[in-house]
């Protein structure tokens, strides 16, 4: 296993095998709102390889959470609906599976952990009850076996004195511990794919680093492929092998983390990277991207980023740029990269 000598970003190079565990093709999810049709996800495609960590980055409202919910088929269905695309797992398009099949897949083959551990855990049931549920359903465990597994699970996520903790209720644990429990639940059945939706956003900065390290360790132990959703490019640098940048429901740039940091090919990516303050630099003002996030029900024709883009030209307003190759497994949707 080769690791780069650079301490600030630990990436694992060369152990990611080429087996594709999740393939998303042209995913489109729309919401009917009182202001109009919102194309929350408008043609998202990516591939996830075994053991790999893919970062899904973007501002709030860019569609990254909805993408995750669409893959899990948990999009709230009166307002929202998946209207197109395929999501392939082990050769099957899970968008076509019926609800019963999907229920069996969730938690066992593909799992998701949510952002806020206080609301993700049911306040009226204790930890054992909630932590053991996936094991009970997918692995059929019960009784003593189940209890032992739960304790082992909690120990794995480094919760002290798990035998005592199992009878506690969520409100009796600290925020960091709750998030560990959430993480433990996510990997409890050794899923092929784990989607983590901003798992550190509601944690204190001091616990964030600990938690990220934990996730990374767990991933290496189990070989799970991880989709890491975040708005923080700094975390992307630490955690991810590849990254997809999203804006207004579409992926605007995708590639290896190293490449993207070295040569960001979309103006939005560039802006995002610039907004992460670097410790060594002395800056007077934090960099903020010009303009407002787009109103999703009323998108401009052409490139959605055009209103805020420092390099905009006429073509950008007319036609939405297609994903153009700018490097090895590196694509960007920007007319500037043409030719």
């Amino acid at each position, binding site marked *: 296993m080769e690791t780069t000598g650079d301490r600030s970003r630990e990436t694992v190079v060369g152990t990611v095998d080429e087996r594709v565990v999740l393939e998303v093709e042209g995913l489109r999810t*729309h919401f*009917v709102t009182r202001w109009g*049709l919102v194309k929350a996800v408008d043609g998202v495609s990516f591939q996830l390889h075994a053991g790999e960590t893919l970062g899904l980055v973007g501002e709030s409202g860019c569609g990254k959470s909805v993408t995750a919910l669409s893959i899990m088929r948990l999009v709230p269905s009166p307002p929202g*609906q998946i*209207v197109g695309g395929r999501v392939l797992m082990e050769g099957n398009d899970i968008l076509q599976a019926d609800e019963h099949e999907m229920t069996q897949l969730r938690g066992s083959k593909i799992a998701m952990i949510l952002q806020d551990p206080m609301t993700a855990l049911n306040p009226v049931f204790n930890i054992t009850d909630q932590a053991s549920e996936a094991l009970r359903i997918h692995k059929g465990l019960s009784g003593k076996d189940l209890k032992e597994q739960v304790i082992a699970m909690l120990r794995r996520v480094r919760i002290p004195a798990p035998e005592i903790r199992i009878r506690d209720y969520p409100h009796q644990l600290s925020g960091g511990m709750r998030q560990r429990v959430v993480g433990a639940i996510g990997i409890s059945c050794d899923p092929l794919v784990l989607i983590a939706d901003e798992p550190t956003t509601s944690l204190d900065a001091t616990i964030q680093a600990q938690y990220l390290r934990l996730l990374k360790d767990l991933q290496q132990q189990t070989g799970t492929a991880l989709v890491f959703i975040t708005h923080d490019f700094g975390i992307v640098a630490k955690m991810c092998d590849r990254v997809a940048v999203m804006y207004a429901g579409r992926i605007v740039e995708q590639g290896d983390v190293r490449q993207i940091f070295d040569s960001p090919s979309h103006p939005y990516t560039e802006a995002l990277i610039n907004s992460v303050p670097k410790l060594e630099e002395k800056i007077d003002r934090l960099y903020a991207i010009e303009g407002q996030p787009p109103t999703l029900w009323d998108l401009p024709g052409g490139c959605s980023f055009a209103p805020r883009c420092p390099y905009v030209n006429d073509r950008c307003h007319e036609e939405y740029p297609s994903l153009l190759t700018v490097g090895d497994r590196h694509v960007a949707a920007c007319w500037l990269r043409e030719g």
Partner: protein
Amino acid sequence: MSSITGKLTPKGINVAKVFGTLRRWPIIPVAVVLFLMIIAIFAPLVAPHHPLEAKFEKRNVPPVWTEEGTSEYLMGGDHIGRDILSRIIFGTRISLMVAATVLAAGAFVGTALGVTAGYFGGIVDEILMRLVDFTYAVPFILVALVAAVIWEPSLQLVIILLAIFTWPPFARQVRVETLQLKAMDYVAMARVSGASSLRIAFKHILPGIVPTVMVMASLQVGALVITESVLSFLGVGIPAPDPSWGSMVAQGRNYVATAWWIAFFPGVAIFLIVFSMNFLGDWLRDTLDPKLRQL
């Protein structure tokens, strides 16, 4: 997959769509309420007869569309020979007046106390909340019955009793909202710029509370009308011969087999107004703030 690509709606009435439209624009309830309000205000002009005028020969006369009916008494006559329709019209006055008075008093007192408790906190708040809890702990019907023993049932008594039990919910809700609004930045700004407490309360907090109070008031009207009619029905509310709908039903009860209309029509009137107000109250709440769903 279909709703977004715009499937043609099939022929025939789409139940959900009809309900949806009705829920969105409550035309019928508003019309009913306005109609009843107009009747109440112009009762003496609208009613064909005086509500207390009893004609001996018209006792238990059936409604106009029956064989023995007469066009003089459209909805029939009661056991003493008074015109039911006229009495119902005047009864509208009573019901609406009671409801309006009680609500005005209850909402006003409740809001004032609620803002005071929420804004100033401390011992005032404690005392107030204990008082509110106490009224919740005592069932209304009990108090009403005991009061009827001590004082003679009358219109004033009914209004006072109802008002006593109406202000606590307002106080409770207003207090909670005051606490929330108190923590808002614009209140802090006002304080820092030297605004007096009274001014803050009126200018900054009160406007935020008004929608809630309005929703609560509209939701309470129906319950108030029913409660008043229950009291009158039992004989401890608005006393005869005043044409309160509840007492009309009580009087008609003995004649159900022979003269069903005496008890029937007043009840329909109660139902119409309560239903409309409940519907409107729900609509108002859903439109203004669905978070108040628990009310």
